[in-house]
C-alpha cells in the first residue's frame, strides 16, 4: 500500500459525503435517512475473501454492542447486490451490505478509500455522528481485520459528547 493511499481517507471533522446505494435488488439505503443516530461505515475489499468474512462475522456478533449506542452498521464493497445476498445468507449476517457497484467504487472514492489499481476499496472504517460528521476514521492494512475496539471507543466518545450537550442545554 502506498503512502498516498494510506493518508487520503477522509478524517475526523469532515462532513460525511451523502450517498444512496442498493442493499438488495429492490432496496436502497441513503446515509441522509440515517441522520439522528450514529452510523458505522465498514468498507471492505470483497465478499467471500477469508479476512473479510472474519471481519463481517465479528461485526455481526458485535451488533448488540453497537446497538447500545443506537449505531447503524453498514458494510460496503464493490460487489453487486446478488453477491451480497448470497454472502449475507451464507454468513447469517444481520446488517446491510451495500453495493458500491455502479458507478464502481464511487462512494469509496468519495471517502478516499478506493484502490484504483486493484479496483476494490480499502479496509476502512468511518464512525459518523448523528449530525452527519465523521468522528473517527481508520484504514487497516488490507489483510488485517481491524476488530471493533476503535469503533466502540468512537461511539463512546460520541455518546459522552451527547450527554454533555444535554446537560448544558
Amino acid at each position, binding site marked *: 500500500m502506498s503512502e498516498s493511499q494510506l493518508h487520503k481517507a477522509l478524517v475526523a471533522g469532515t462532513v460525511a459525503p451523502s450517498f444512496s446505494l442498493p442493499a438488495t435488488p429492490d432496496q436502497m439505503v441513503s446515509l441522509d435517512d440515517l441522520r439522528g443516530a450514529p452510523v458505522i461505515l465498514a468498507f471492505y475489499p470483497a465478499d467471500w475473501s477469508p479476512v473479510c468474512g*472474519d*471481519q463481517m*462475522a*465479528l461485526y*455481526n*456478533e*458485535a451488533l*448488540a*454492542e453497537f446497538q447500545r449506542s443506537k449505531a447503524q452498521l453498514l458494510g460496503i464493497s464493490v460487489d453487486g447486490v446478488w453477491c451480497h445476498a448470497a454472502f449475507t445468507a451464507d*454468513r*447469517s*449476517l*444481520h446488517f446491510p451490505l451495500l453495493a458500491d457497484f455502479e458507478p464502481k467504487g464511487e462512494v469509496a472514492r468519495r471517502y478516499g478509500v478506493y484502490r484504483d489499481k486493484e479496483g476494490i476499496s480499502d479496509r476502512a472504517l468511518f464512525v459518523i455522528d448523528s449530525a452527519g460528521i465523521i468522528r473517527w476514521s481508520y484504514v487497516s492494512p488490507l489483510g488485517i*481485520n*481491524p*476488530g*471493533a*475496539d476503535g469503533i*466502540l471507543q468512537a461511539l463512546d466518545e460520541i455518546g459522552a459528547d451527547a450527554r454533555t450537550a444535554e446537560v448544558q442545554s
Partner: protein
Amino acid sequence: MNRLSVGVDSGDHIAGPRSAAVTLVEYGDYECPYCGEAYPILKAVQQAMGSDLCFVFRNFPLAQMHPHAVHAADFAEMAAAEGKFWEAHDLLYENQQALSDNDLRRYGKLLGIHPAAVERAFDGRFDQKIEDDFRSGLRSGVNGTPSFFINGMRYDGPLDVDSLIAVLREVHAR
C-alpha cells in the same frame, strides 16, 4: 498495540497461581477449529512453564458462525460452578466435532455432574458472564479466535510451543 480492557479478576477461569509473573489470557470459542489447534499447544506451554504461568480462559463464542459454541460455553460455565471448569474445557476441546446438546449431556455424566444441572445450564443463566467476556474481548481489540494477551498486551506472534515458551520466558525474566 491492543491492551486487555478488563484485568484478570476472581470471576475469571484461572489455571496456575494468580501471583505468577506471567499471565496469559486466551479469548476462545469451543467450536473454533483454530482454538482447537491451539489447545494442545497451550497444554504443553502450561506444562513447561509450571507455576511461572497463570493461564486464563475467556469466552468469545462466534454464535452465528458456530451453532454449538454458546451451549458449549454454557456447559463449561456450569461446570465451573461445580468446581470442574478445566475438566469441562479440556473435554470440549478434545471433542470439538461432537458438541451437540446430547454430547454435552454425555460429558456431564463423564464429569459426574447431575443431569439437572446440565439442563439448567442451557436456560440462559450464564448469558451475562459469557457476554461480559465477549464484550471485554471486543473492547480489547479481539478480532477473531483464539486471541491472546500476555500480561495485558496483545500477542500476535507465532503459536507454536517453542515460540510461546520463549516469549513467556522473556516476559518472565523482565
